[in-house]
C-alpha cells in the first residue's frame, strides 16, 4: 500500500476519533441527566413527574427507532443551523450526538435503576435532598454500570460514524466506501475494517478495565 493511502487511513482514523469522541462527550452530557431523570421520575419516585417521564420516554423511543442513516438526512437543516454546514466531520457530530443521547439515556436509566431503592430511602431518612441523593448515592453506586454503558455507547458510535460518510462526513467508513467499494480496492476496505476492529477492541478493553477497577473496590476482598 502506498504512503498516500496509509496517510489517508491515518487521517480518516483521526476524523473518526474526533467525531466519536466529541459526540460521546456531548451525548453523555445530555444523556446522563436525561437517563437519571428517566430513572427517577415515575410516580412516587425522587423527581416524580409521570407525565414528563412518559413524554420523554416516547421521544427517546422515537429517536432510537429512527434508522441512523435516515436521521442523518432528516435533520440536515438542523445540522446546518448548528454547525453552519451539513458536510464534514464537524457537521456529522450533530446527528451522532442526537442518536447517542437517547441511547446513553436508556443505558444510564437501566444502571441507575439497578441501585437498591433502600439506599434512596436511607439517604432521605437523614435529610438528603433529591440532588444530593443523585450525586452522593445514585451515581457513585451505579458507577460500574455507567462505565460499561458508556463503553457500549462509544462502540455503537464507532459503527454509526462509519455511516456519516454517506453524506460527506469523512472518517473511516467514508474511506472504506469510496476507495474500497467504489474504486474496487479490497485492500483498502480490509485496512479500514482492521482499524475499526482494533479501535473497538481498545475501547471495550479500556471500558472493562475501568468498570472492573471501580467494581473491585466494591465487591471483592
Amino acid at each position, binding site marked *: 500500500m502506498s504512503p498516500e493511502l496509509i496517510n489517508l487511513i491515518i487521517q480518516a482514523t483521526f476524523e473518526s476519533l474526533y467525531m466519536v469522541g466529541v459526540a460521546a462527550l456531548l451525548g453523555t452530557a445530555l444523556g446522563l441527566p436525561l437517563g437519571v431523570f428517566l430513572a427517577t421520575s415515575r410516580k412516587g419516585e425522587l423527581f416524580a413527574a409521570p407525565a414528563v417521564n412518559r413524554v420523554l420516554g416516547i421521544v427517546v423511543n422515537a429517536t432510537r427507532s429512527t434508522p441512523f442513516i435516515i436521521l442523518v438526512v432528516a435533520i440536515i437543516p438542523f445540522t446546518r443551523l448548528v454547525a453552519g454546514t451539513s458536510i464534514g466531520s464537524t457537521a456529522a457530530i450533530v446527528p451522532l450526538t442526537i442518536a447517542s443521547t437517547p441511547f446513553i439515556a436508556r443505558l444510564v436509566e437501566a444502571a441507575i435503576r439497578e441501585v437498591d431503592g433502600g439506599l434512596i*430511602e*436511607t439517604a432521605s*431518612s*437523614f*435529610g438528603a*435532598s433529591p440532588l444530593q441523593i443523585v450525586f452522593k448515592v445514585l451515581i457513585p453506586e451505579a458507577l460500574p454500570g455507567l462505565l460499561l454503558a458508556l463503553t457500549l455507547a462509544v462502540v455503537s458510535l464507532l459503527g454509526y460514524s462509519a455511516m456519516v460518510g454517506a453524506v460527506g462526513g469523512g472518517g473511516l467508513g467514508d474511506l472504506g466506501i469510496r476507495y474500497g467499494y467504489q474504486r474496487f480496492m479490497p485492500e483498502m476496505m480490509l485496512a479500514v475494517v482492521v482499524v475499526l476492529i482494533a479501535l473497538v477492541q481498545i475501547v471495550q478493553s479500556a471500558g472493562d478495565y475501568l468498570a472492573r477497577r471501580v467494581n473491585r473496590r466494591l*465487591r471483592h*476482598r
Partner: protein
Amino acid sequence: MVRFEGISKTYPAYRGKPGVNALEGIDFAIARGSITGVIGRSGAGKSSLVRLINGLEKPTTGRVVVDNSDISALAGRELRLAQRSIGMIFQHFNLLSSRTAAANIALPLEIAGWSKAAIKARVAELLDLVGIADKHDRYPSELSGGQKQRVGIARALATRPSVLLSDEATSALDPQTTRAILDLLANINRELGVTIVLITHEMSVVRQLAKEVVVLDAGHVVESGHVADIFTHPKHPITQSFLAEVIGDSLPVSLASRIVPEPVVGSRAVIRVQVRGAGAGDTLIARLARELGLDVSLLSARIDEIGGQHVGSLVLGIPGGESAATRTLAWLSQYQFSAERLGYVA
C-alpha cells in the same frame, strides 16, 4: 418525645390493587429517653408507623409530633432539617457499597454540610462508640452482618439525633450477633439518652431491650404499656401468641401423647399453672405439697423473664384421682393462680 395523634394511613388503590388501610386510629406517645418496641406480624403496619416518625411517609389523617414539632406538616428543606435529628437503622443495613465504613458514616454529615475536619473527628468518635475502629477503611463487602449494622448505627447517630428508629435491625442477624447489637443499642440509650423506637416481629428483641411495648395488629394498636405489664397479663390473642413464642404453650411430645381425658387407676392429673409476676412460682410446689399433702411431681416447666417479671407455666402431675385434682385447682385459684386440667397420665 414522639406523639401520634389520631393517625390513619391509607394507601389508595393503584393499578388494579385495592386500597389498603395500613393504620387506623393510632394514638399514643413515646417518652423521651425510653426504649419502645413496636411488635406485630408482617403487614400489621409497623413499617408505615415508623416511617411516619421521620417523615418518609405522611399520615392520611392526624399528626405526628416529634420533639414538639409537627413532622407531618413539614416539607422540603424544613423536613430535611428535622430529619437530621432522627436516625434510622435498617434490616438490610443499606450501606453504600462504593464507600468505606468511615465514608458511609460520613455521608449524613456531608449532607448536613459539616466541614471535612469536623467530619473526620466525628467519624473516628462514632467508629469507636460502635466498637469497630479497626474497620475504618473497609468496604461493606468486607464486613460481617454485625459489623455492617454497627456501621449503620454509627451512621444513624452521626448527626446526634434525639430519636433512633430501628426497622427490624436485627432480623437478618444470627442470635449471637443480635444479642450484641441489642446490647449496643441499650448502651447507646443509657449513655447518650437517645430515645429508641424498635419495630420488630421478634419477641426476643422486645424482651431483651424494650421497656415499653406497643402491640400492632391489622393497623390498630391492640395493647400498649410497660413490657412487664403487657406480657404478664396479655389480653389480645396476638399478644398471647407473641408471648407463646417465648414461653411456649405446647407440652413435650412424650407427655402430650400419653394424656387421656379420664382418670384410670394410679394415674396422675396433669395440671398447667400459669406463672406471672416476680417470684410468683418460687415456692408453689413446696406449698402445694405441704398444704394438700400431695406428692406433686413436675412434668414440664418453662419460665422466662420479661421486663423483670417471671412469665411461664408449670405442668404438674397430681396423684390421687379426680378429687385430688379438684382440690388442687381450688387451692390454686384461692392463691390467684390461673390453672387448667389437661387430662391424666398413667
